[in-house]
């Protein structure tokens, strides 16, 4: 058992004393344990060493080549060189920041589950939030190391001239936030399903997304470097940059909360935090609307407003379909944490777990935020046709209600056989779209061979057609709404009984320590509360 330990052996591992070491220990004590572990691991890992080495060599090669070229063309130190050099560094730095790191984050999270190491971590004192933050921080640390290598290079381009410090700062800040956004997307995707096939599929998707964003960023960066010299003096440019960074921040936060929610065990409240962040992201779009209206002083207000409304609509629409897959069971734990005060009940009840509550949450969230955006627009007095924008809001909200309601119906059916997940949500979305968008299109192709020639009643479900119709001055706006709105109200209305049941289940208090966990899929659909079981009498008399 306890073995005699020689002093020498103890020395072998005992922390070496010394001021620096102690200071480092004190700092490391406060750090996220996962960050410390990953840092220790990461420094020894081959992937990091390889990428780092490659990035370093590329940077050196590019520097030397750039200098040689400038010598060759006898351009001495002129403006073009600094700009081209910077673009080159961005192209190199972008690869680790926008492609390697998000994929590394994904792999690291997936690996934790695949290797079975996460189980043991999950039963320590670490919270799901700490786990996600630890993963995020350890990937960001790698990013910081890449960054620090490029700082001298970038400073060097500044000395060559042709770029301002502000331009460099903007590029790095925007690039850094896009990188954080992609990393959080990678983390969120990694925890959605443990199925190998799904993960392979998602990995390919993530690679494509990263490549696309990388290309987009490079194009925007070169645009800015070559044509945006005057941007810096333009306050609109700065507010646009600030808004984009804010929005990326909001959605990174959403991805973080989604990842964290997936790590929270079943039967605990996974919903509230995610829903609050959904509201924040929506508010980001409303803020964008206000900003654009301010900026354009009413010139293109309606058009830009439409664009932002569409974004807001897309936000809530997607949110709705993900919320449909929430757990139905209301456990004692969830019940205990449900709001008790009247005001709390009225407001926070919509943030409580449950698919029907979630559906109505997205519906109200969407409607309220669209109305706020509309008020901003009306307040700025920037409208040509008031009825048009009101119809727009009504139509978009109706689509959330209609498709959400149909999706919820389909999901309730599917729950009999499968446990909901992101994949199931996607299948439901696909099914609903096929039914209401694909089938009419097919029908039209078969009968008239050219689609969308003329507005027909079954186009009412197709937002692309109806919104276009609402836009056009001759459009039958009210004809559309007369059909669409009642249908949407009905689609939402059929869920009112389920909504009532979910709210009631939250109120219900059972004086029992028993908690039921419906497990066979057939049990999942049922809304009945499990009977309480008198375990108390089984306790030993010692209690």
């Amino acid at each position, binding site marked *: 058992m306890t073995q005699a330990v020689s002093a020498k052996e103890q020395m072998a591992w005992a922390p070496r004393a010394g001021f620096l070491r102690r200071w480092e220990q004190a700092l490391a004590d406060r750090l996220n344990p996962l960050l410390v572990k990953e840092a220790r691991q990461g420094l020894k890992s081959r992937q990091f060493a390889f990428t780092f080495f490659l990035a370093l060599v590329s940077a050196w090669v590019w520097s030397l080549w750039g200098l040689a070229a400038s010598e060759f063309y006898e351009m001495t130190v002129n403006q073009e060189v600094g700009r081209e050099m910077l673009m080159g560094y961005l192209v190199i730095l972008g690869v680790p920041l926008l492609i390697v790191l998000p994929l590394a984050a994904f792999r690291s999270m997936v690996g934790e589950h695949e290797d079975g190491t996460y189980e043991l971590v999950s039963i320590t004192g670490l919270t799901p939030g700490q786990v996600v933050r630890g993963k995020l921080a350890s990937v960001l640390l790698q990013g910081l190391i890449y960054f620090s290598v490029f700082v001298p290079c970038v400073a060097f381009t500044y000395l060559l001239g042709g770029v301002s410090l502000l331009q460099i700062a903007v590029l790095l800040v925007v690039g850094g936030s896009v990188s954080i956004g992609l990393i959080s997307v990678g983390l969120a995707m990694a925890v959605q399903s443990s199925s190998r096939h799904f993960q392979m599929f998602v990995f390919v998707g993530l690679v494509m997304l990263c490549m696309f964003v990388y290309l987009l960023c490079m194009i925007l960066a070169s645009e800015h470097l070559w044509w945006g010299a005057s941007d810096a003096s333009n306050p609109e440019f700065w507010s646009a940059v600030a808004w984009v960074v804010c929005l990326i921040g909001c959605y990174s936060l959403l991805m973080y909360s989604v990842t964290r929610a997936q790590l929270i065990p079943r039967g605990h409240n996974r919903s509230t935090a995610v829903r609050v962040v959904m509201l924040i992201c929506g508010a980001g779009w409303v803020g964008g609307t206000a900003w654009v209206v301010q900026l354009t002083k009413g010139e293109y207000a309606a058009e830009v407003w439409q664009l932002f409304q569409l974004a807001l609509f897309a936000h809530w629409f997607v949110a709705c379909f993900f919320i449909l897959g929430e757990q139905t069971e209301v456990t004692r*734990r969830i019940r205990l944490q449900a709001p008790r005060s009247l005001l709390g009940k009225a407001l926070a009840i919509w943030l409580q777990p449950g698919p029907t509550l979630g559906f109505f949450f997205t519906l109200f969230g969407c409607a309220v935020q669209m109305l706020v955006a509309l008020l901003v627009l009306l307040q700025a007095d920037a409208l040509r046709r008031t009825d048009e924008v009101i119809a727009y809001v009504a139509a978009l909200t109706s689509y959330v209600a209609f498709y959400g309601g149909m999706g919820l119906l389909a999901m309730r059916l599917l729950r009999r056989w499968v446990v909901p997940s992101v994949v199931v949500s996607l299948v439901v979305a696909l099914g609903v779209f096929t039914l209401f968008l694909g089938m009419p299109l097919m029908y039209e192709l078969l009968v008239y061979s050219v689609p969308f020639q003329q507005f027909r009643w079954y186009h009412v479900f197709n937002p692309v057609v109806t919104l276009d119709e609402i836009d056009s001055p001759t459009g039958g706006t009210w004809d559309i709404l007369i059909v669409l709105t009642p249908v949407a109200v009905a689609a939402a209305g059929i869920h009112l009984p389920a909504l009532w049941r979910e709210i009631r289940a939250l109120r219900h208090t059972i004086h029992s320590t028993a908690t039921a*966990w419906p497990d066979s899929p057939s049990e999942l659909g049922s809304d009945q509360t499990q009977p309480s079981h008198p375990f108390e009498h089984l306790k030993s008399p010692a209690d």
Partner: protein
Amino acid sequence: MKRSQPAIEVYNLHRFFGTTRAVDDVSFQVHPGEVFGFIGPNGAGKTTTMRILATLDQPSFGNAYIAGFSVVEEPEQARLRLGFMPDYFNTYPYVNVWEYLDFFARAYGLRGARRHQAVQEVMEFTGLISLAEKPTRALSKGMKQRLCLARALIHDPDVLILDEPAAGLDPRARVELRQMIRHLANQGKAVLISSHILTELGEICDSVGIIEQGRLKAAGPLELIRQRINQYSVLQLEVLSDPQQALGLLQQHELVGEVHLRNQHVLWAQFRGDKVQRAQLLSYLVNQGVKVAEFSAQEGSLEEVFLSLTQGQVQ
């Protein structure tokens, strides 16, 4: 909701996988300082029960408490009071023994000097000091088990849940493990241990639970279970006096069942009773003038108990 007394309480635990009843109405308790052996054939539901207790899985029905905290409703509290050693060993690449333990110490919220002390202590206890710098991937099976135990002990939990800790260990390592577990129990920890190696459990367990097809066939102190199963122990007597006299006396005794005359001097008798009653029987025979040369009782081994309780049905 802090409760006193038992460190592990399991009430009417159920866990269904589709139609498989992996755990079917299991209830038992383990007190501080007690080693509870969980015995059952393959697929009996041992791992499933232990994973629920370790808050890694959730019961379909029923509840369990670790140091008074429900694993269903207050898993955060329960986790801090339990150390779990699963039947697999997974580790991170590029991490050495010290770093591995240090990570878990941090994860359990140990800071500064306390953390160093905790890591040092568990490494000493499990004899890993000399391997501190060795990569975890490169450890032998026995050393991995030690590391696993060290990890489970790092936050000094009240409850230890060990899933087949002795599997794959050589005899010496087994003895050492047994000593470690005994030592931990003496410190007041409640230990729940599952194993196929029944004789081993017999030596270190205070109580056992025998589980098959998710159902607990018997649970309680080892002695009680033995008695319940083997109501009769077999007495073997060698008498130098008249065997017929001994036969007659035995047959009249209320605690003795069937009696056989094996050969001229040796008798076999089924006896129901404890050691004291056995001693009384012996003195009674001697007082009656029977010359007893040998008197021995063969109790059912744990192996026999196990086999008599389970039918070897595997789900």
